[in-house]
């Protein structure tokens, strides 16, 4: 008999072009709460999906109670006793608590569902988790805390030996977090092992027995909680060397192009204020879900805003749609290239002029010669690899698609260029070309704002950095400040203070 209830050994998972997990390992003892942390993209989600059978590892073994298992799908993993409460809950809000708990595991009396028994069992399970609720009520009538308990009840009901909780506290209030921790300790006392994924260090210190750190798809370290400190955890998470893959060039700092004051979106952004200058790249750092994308979408008029003021070049603007934002001289390259950046079924030619039909029309009609000329120009300067501008964009590689998006926005002739995760999912060569476009823009006096979850990219390219967390700006750091390093920026992203 193994000392671990679930053990993953030597797991490697490759996706086209990336190694998501590289000889990864994790092991949970029965009746233990194991913390799991890592930066964005460290491989936490992939690791969870391998354990729950959503993905199959290319190499490596999974043992449950010492017995080797192979999971071809999530059902097999569940049958072996592994359950997961995902960050995005799988709750059918209109169905009753009972229905949610017993979905697919119905108790029947003959041909019919036996609701009397199911309601009773549901009530019992919820009570054992410290929740006295009416199981006949729709799940949506309860708060997030109780909805999460319903997910946990599902896990308890299938006799889970191990429960993975993927950032369970991210959407909970203080009281609910307390209740959740109580429940975790209760589950622990029943001998269930828990993997507790969190972005909040204080929770790990309060709850966990041991903490495992992973980074860049690799296992870094596991220690009992009393052998970790705040600083040692952060160093373990970020500790990688900066290679010189960033051809940073400097512009001349100009006027304040964009000033944001108290930008608020209920429940998402809390009085976000910052300034961005011409001739500079402003980096926006923070964890996934810190509110960076929401901030720039709000500025761009893509989403409605509940409060705050925006000034472009010193003049207050009231932007209610992307059209108005473009007229004010703002361009936004969204993080989701395929979903909101390109019309994949259209040609390169059409995509390039999508934000600048006006500049490419003469009278009523589109100016074919002008379109052809600017299109060819972009293919050359951006080095888009394609036989012609009549190719369908969906057929291009990720890097070339990103260059088409960039070309589209260069055509819009903006003053403020916002890049949201501009190098995500593109190869190293194309990344450098994207950096060079940014260099060119700042050298021409334009203002660039770059959201990136890659710390080296933030440090490599930014003139100034703001760090966000929970919809708020936590810190603002200049390139020549002593705080301009991975550890300090990460500390701010994880809620720490950067004061002396």
């Amino acid at each position, binding site marked *: 008999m193994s000392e671990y209830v679930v053990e993953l050994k030597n797991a490697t998972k490759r996706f086209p072009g990336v190694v998501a997990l590289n000889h990864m390992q994790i092991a949970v003892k029965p009746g233990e709460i194991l913390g799991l942390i890592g930066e964005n993209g460290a491989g936490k989600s992939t690791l969870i999906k391998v354990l729950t059978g959503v993905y199959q590892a290319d190499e490596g073994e999974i043992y449950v109670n010492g017995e080797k298992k192979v999971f071809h799908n999530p059902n097999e993993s569940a049958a072996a006793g592994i359950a997961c409460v995902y960050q995005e809950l799988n709750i059918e809000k209109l169905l009753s608590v009972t229905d949610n708990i017993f979905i697919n595991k119905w108790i029947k009396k003959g041909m019919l569902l036996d609701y009397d028994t199911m309601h009773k069992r549901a009530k019992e399970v919820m009570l054992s988790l410290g929740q006295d609720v009416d199981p006949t009520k729709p799940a949506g009538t309860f708060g997030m805390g109780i909805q999460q308990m319903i997910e946990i009840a599902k896990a308890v009901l299938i006799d889970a030996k191990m429960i993975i909780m993927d950032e369970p506290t991210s959407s909970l209030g203080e009281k609910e977090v307390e209740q959740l921790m109580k429940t975790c300790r209760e589950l622990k006392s029943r001998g269930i092992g828990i993997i507790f994924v969190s972005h909040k260090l204080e929770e790990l210190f309060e709850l966990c027995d041991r903490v495992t750190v992973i980074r860049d798809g690799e296992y870094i370290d596991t220690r009992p909680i009393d052998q970790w400190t705040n600083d040692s955890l952060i160093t373990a998470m970020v500790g990688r060397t900066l290679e010189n893959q960033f051809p940073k060039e400097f512009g001349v700092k100009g006027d304040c192009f964009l000033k944001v004051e108290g930008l608020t979106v209920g429940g998402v952004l809390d009085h976000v204020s910052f300034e961005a200058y011409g001739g500079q790249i402003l980096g926006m750092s923070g964890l996934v879900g810190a509110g960076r994308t929401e901030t720039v979408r709000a500025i*761009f008029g*893509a989403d409605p805003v509940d409060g705050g003021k925006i000034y472009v070049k010193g003049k207050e603007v009231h932007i209610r*749609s*992307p*059209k108005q*934002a*473009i*007229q004010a001289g703002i361009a*936004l390259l*969204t993080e989701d290239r395929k*979903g*909101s*950046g*390109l*019309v*994949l*079924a*259209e*040609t390169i030619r*059409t995509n390039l*002029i*999508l*934000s600048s*039909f*006006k500049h*490419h*029309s003469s009278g*009523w*009609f*589109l100016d*074919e010669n002008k379109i052809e000329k600017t299109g060819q120009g972009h293919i050359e300067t951006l080095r888009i690899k394609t*036989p*012609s501008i*009549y*190719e*369908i964009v*969906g*057929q291009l*590689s990720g890097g070339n698609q990103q260059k088409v998006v960039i070309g*589209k926005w260069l055509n*819009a002739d903006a003053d403020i260029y916002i890049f949201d995760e501009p190098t995500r999912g593109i190869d190293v060569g194309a990344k450098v070309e994207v950096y060079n476009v940014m260099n060119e823009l700042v050298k021409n006096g334009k203002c660039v704002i770059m959201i990136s979850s890659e710390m080296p990219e933030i440090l490599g390219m930014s003139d100034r950095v703001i760090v966000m967390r929970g919809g708020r700006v936590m810190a603002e750091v200049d390139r020549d400040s002593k705080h301009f390093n991975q550890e300090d920026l990460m500390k701010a992203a994880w809620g720490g203070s950067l004061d002396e």
Partner: protein
Amino acid sequence: MNKKMGGGVQLGTVLALVIMCAFLAFANRNFYSPGNIMGILKQTAFNAFLATGMLLCLITAGIDLSVGANAIFCACLMGALKEAGVTSGILLMIVAILAGGFMGFLNGTLLTRLHLPHPFVSTLGMKNVLWGAALVVTGNKMINKFPESVQFLGRQTIGSFGGGFPVSFLVIIILYIVMHIFLSRTALGRSIYCAGGNMEATRLSGINTANVLTFCYTMSGIMAALGGILSVGRSGICNGSMATQPYDTDAIAACIIGGASFTGGKGTMIGTMIGALIIAVLRNGFTLLSIDSSVQNIVLGLVIILAVFMDVVRASMEAKRRRLAAAAKAH
């Protein structure tokens, strides 16, 4: 390589039309008589008007199921006004076009400002509203004796070949050329395709997609009104109960056969013209072969299902081709 010239009509669609014509010519010697040909063109014209508006909506990944009822409503509105003593044909037609356009505008507004879900349901509701309204304004009566000018579009012919070339089809040819240029060569035209291909990307590129959609539905209403005026000229009457006829499905079929897709972003005027001709030839063939009208309905229904099925097959084949091309490029 696929330069989008000539509208990208599938060769197969043209071939289907040719084969159908050849078969009918063989099966019935009357098919190629000048009179029959002109009759087909006349029949095509009505559907071609409705299909123009339908195409715009389909390109945006929407649909307008109220076009048929809207056409009949506009015809009935003219009838009611005539009965009420309006004698100017020009005035009647202007009112009809304004009314049809307004109904389309309502459809667009429901979709874009009140954020109703897919226009399938809201335009289906509008269809019933217009059907009822058509009966109400005419008091459930058929109305005839329209002014000459109103009947001009549907009745007038040019020359004497086969009883004369219908003016309505001439108007359709001009309309289709203008719309083809509009869709392929103007900013608004290209915006319609882009909105259908990726609504969010288009909106974030600074195009007011709500206005683009409203424009398409308004145009659809205006085209329906023109169809209504044509129908008055062709039959000499307006009849509210005609609003339940499957005009909408004929228009959808013409677009889909012509290469439009329910997923949006695709479709051309030339393809839609071929599609409308196929539908008209099919209906004409049934009549020539004296096939029972109930059987006609069955066959036409199956043709529409087949067209949608072909759309799905086409999409999955294209996706596969794209995948293979991308894979080939990666190596």
